[in-house]
């Protein structure tokens, strides 16, 4: 090696170290082997996933649980395409992720070479930005920019595609200069005039409601939101992504609103005269038909992404900026207020429409409530489907970054690998994945990664032998013609777990739920609890009509 020069692969490792990255999830292949050769000599921990999609979800789960940027790597071609679902999941939920992919050598690009795919072309629509590097000198700057982009403003995934020969090329080590991006200037501070106008509207409100979304990223923002709601006595409803953004046990919290929202929460939206939407994009699963959404409300919309303002819902007062800053300003400008009649009315609605107790020996609500009793401070990671909505309703969380779910893309298979990433990032907290049997089978090979890396994550499989949400939709909208939602009664998840190096437990009786959970949480090893749901039940409320008040319960 020439004096003062390093290889591209070494430059990647140095750039990661400069970003204080100590952990990377990945899977090796021909095109990123030079990087793996270098990783072997670095102090970075590498977690070998058993599928690239798993690596992406792990990095995403790590990012969601810690607030840091997750990093994953894969090789060219199928390695990169296997990352795609994970990257798209992170993109839809604004999760900070840096993906580094190997690419075929420069002289082969465009030739349909072995394991060549147009990775940057494929990932343009699902990344905040991406790079195809042409020489090793670019590595340092590109990675510095990638981390800056992924972790600032509205967070999101950034992909850096590096040809194999660029990883092997000699280059001068980067100077570590801060990134300069002419076309990227996220707005962080809210416009003072808009904040003042919003404060005046909140002050005059008689029936205000706060909608909180998934963009509450810091403890400061979490506390500012709590202070605003409590100081102004404003009821809070959340989106699925926003569930962890406000203490769920607070009497002002009315729960999830929208398509599967609680009646009290949807009532609040329908009758509110002022809505403060915080870090939410007013997605279609929440608002339903936008024509009928919040007919009486004047809307204040706080979001860091200017493109979200006015995209789905027209706001009277848009405020672009960091939620923590804007909420802090609002708290400072407003004297405390109360809306006793409005709050009482909504709380009465909540009491009149409690969460149902389902019949059956082992039910999803029973498992979730048992978990809450035994382990109230768990980080709950869900998969996608009926159990996901049950989890949103039946497992209250009272701390930021404690409810991780694939809200935007709705990726089945997210739960287990995301929980593994979350547990690696937060070894101090219990991390529990709640999955359906359908989604669990999509990524259950990652149990091997958890076993080998000794990550004591707990996975609860709601085993009802069917694709529950599909079945529910066919029940409601397809004349009960159940097609391809029956998974068959063949899998023994406890034995599956044992064969993949984990602890496996089975629950068939009500009385077995809590002992099994206790055992799983104390196992000190990755553990799967096969919860045999004996009477599968639909999850309600569910909106079936044009407005949020056309529901079945």
């Amino acid at each position, binding site marked *: 090696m020439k004096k003062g020069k390093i290889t591209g692969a070494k430059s990647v490792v140095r750039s990661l170290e400069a970003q204080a990255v100590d952990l990377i999830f990945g899977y090796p292949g021909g095109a990123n082997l030079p990087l793996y050769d270098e990783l072997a000599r670095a102090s970075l921990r590498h977690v070998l996933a058993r599928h690239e999609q798993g690596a992406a979800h792990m990095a995403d789960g790590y990012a969601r649980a810690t607030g840091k940027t997750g990093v994953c790597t894969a090789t060219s071609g199928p390695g990169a395409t296997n990352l795609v679902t994970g990257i798209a999941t992170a993109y839809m939920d604004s999760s900070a992720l840096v993906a580094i992919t190997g690419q075929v050598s420069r002289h082969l690009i465009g030739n349909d070479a072995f394991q060549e795919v147009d990775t940057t072309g494929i990932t343009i629509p699902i990344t905040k930005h991406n790079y195809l590097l042409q020489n090793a000198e670019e590595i340092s700057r590109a990675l510095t920019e990638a981390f800056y982009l992924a972790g600032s403003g509205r967070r999101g995934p950034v992909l850096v595609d590096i040809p194999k020969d660029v990883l092997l090329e000699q280059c001068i080590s980067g100077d570590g200069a801060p990134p300069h991006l002419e076309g990227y200037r996220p707005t962080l501070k809210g416009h003072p005039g808009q904040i003042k106008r919003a404060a005046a509207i909140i002050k005059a409100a008689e029936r205000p409601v706060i909608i909180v979304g998934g963009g509450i990223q810091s403890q400061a923002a979490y506390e500012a939101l709590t202070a605003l709601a409590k100081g102004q006595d404003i009821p809070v409803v959340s989106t699925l992504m926003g569930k962890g953004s406000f203490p769920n046990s607070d009497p002002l919290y009315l729960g999830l609103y929208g398509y599967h929202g609680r009646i009290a929460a949807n009532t609040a939206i329908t009758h509110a005269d002022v809505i403060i939407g915080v870090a939410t994009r007013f997605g279609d699963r929440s608002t339903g038909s936008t024509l009928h959404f919040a007919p009486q409300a004047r809307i204040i919309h706080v979001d860091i992404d200017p*493109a979200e303002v006015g995209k789905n819902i027209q706001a009277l007062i848009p405020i672009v900026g960091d939620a923590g800053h804007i909420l802090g300003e609002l708290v400072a400008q407003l004297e405390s207020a109360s809306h006793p009649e409005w709050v009482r009315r909504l709380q009465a609605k909540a009491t009149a429409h409690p969460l149902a107790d389902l019949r059956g020996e082992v039910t999803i609500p029973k498992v979730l409530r048992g978990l809450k009793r035994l382990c109230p401070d768990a980080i709950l990671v869900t998969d996608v489907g009926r159990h996901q909505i049950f989890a949103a309703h039946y497992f209250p969380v009272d701390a930021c970054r404690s409810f991780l779910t694939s809200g935007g893309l709705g990726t089945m298979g997210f739960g287990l690998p995301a929980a593994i990433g979350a547990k690696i990032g937060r070894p101090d907290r219990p991390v529990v994945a709640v999955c359906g049997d359908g989604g669990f089978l999509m990524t259950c090979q990652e149990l091997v990664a958890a076993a080998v890396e000794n990550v004591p994550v707990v996975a609860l499989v709601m085993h009802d032998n069917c694709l529950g949400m599909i079945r529910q939709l066919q029940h409601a909208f397809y004349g009960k013609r159940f097609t391809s939602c029956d998974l068959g009664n063949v899998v023994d998840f406890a034995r599956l777990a044992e064969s993949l190096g984990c602890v496996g437990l089975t629950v068939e009786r009500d009385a077995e739920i809590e002992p099994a959970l206790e055992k799983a949480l104390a196992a000190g090893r990755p553990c799967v609890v096969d919860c045999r749901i004996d009477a599968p039940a639909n999850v309600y409320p569910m909106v079936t009509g044009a407005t949020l008040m056309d529901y079945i319960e």
Partner: protein
Amino acid sequence: MKHTISILCNDTPGVLTRISGLFSRRGFNIESLSVGNTELKGKSRFTIVVQGDDRVLEQVRKQLQKLIHVIKVWDITPEAAIEREHALIKVDVERHRKGELLQILTAVEGRIISSSGSMWTLEVTGEPSQVDNALNLFKDYTIVESIRTGRIALER
């Protein structure tokens, strides 16, 4: 309603894909697109005409602004804009009609770029409506081939 959007962006490989891909995946319809270098080194300017109401336009503008390579986006209102289009038309014209075509060409401020026997290649430059008008007038002749650029625009 038609809007003209002007985009100043980095002149890097793939920037056209990023911009045109954004239009297609967000369901915005491009009426015309032209791109070229500017007085700034390493920068290109796109002029894109889109169809849509003000709300669509605002989304287009904001989504474009989110692309890291995009530096600035303007919505150029027709009153404040200088807009030009350019058209090339190859016409097969009979001998006895050449005088008449020449008159029309003078009226629309066009030029003959090349001629070979009965085959004339004409060019017309002007505001989009002038180019429309010229192409309309040429319809009486045998148009063999024709092409027009998308519009380019600058604020006054």
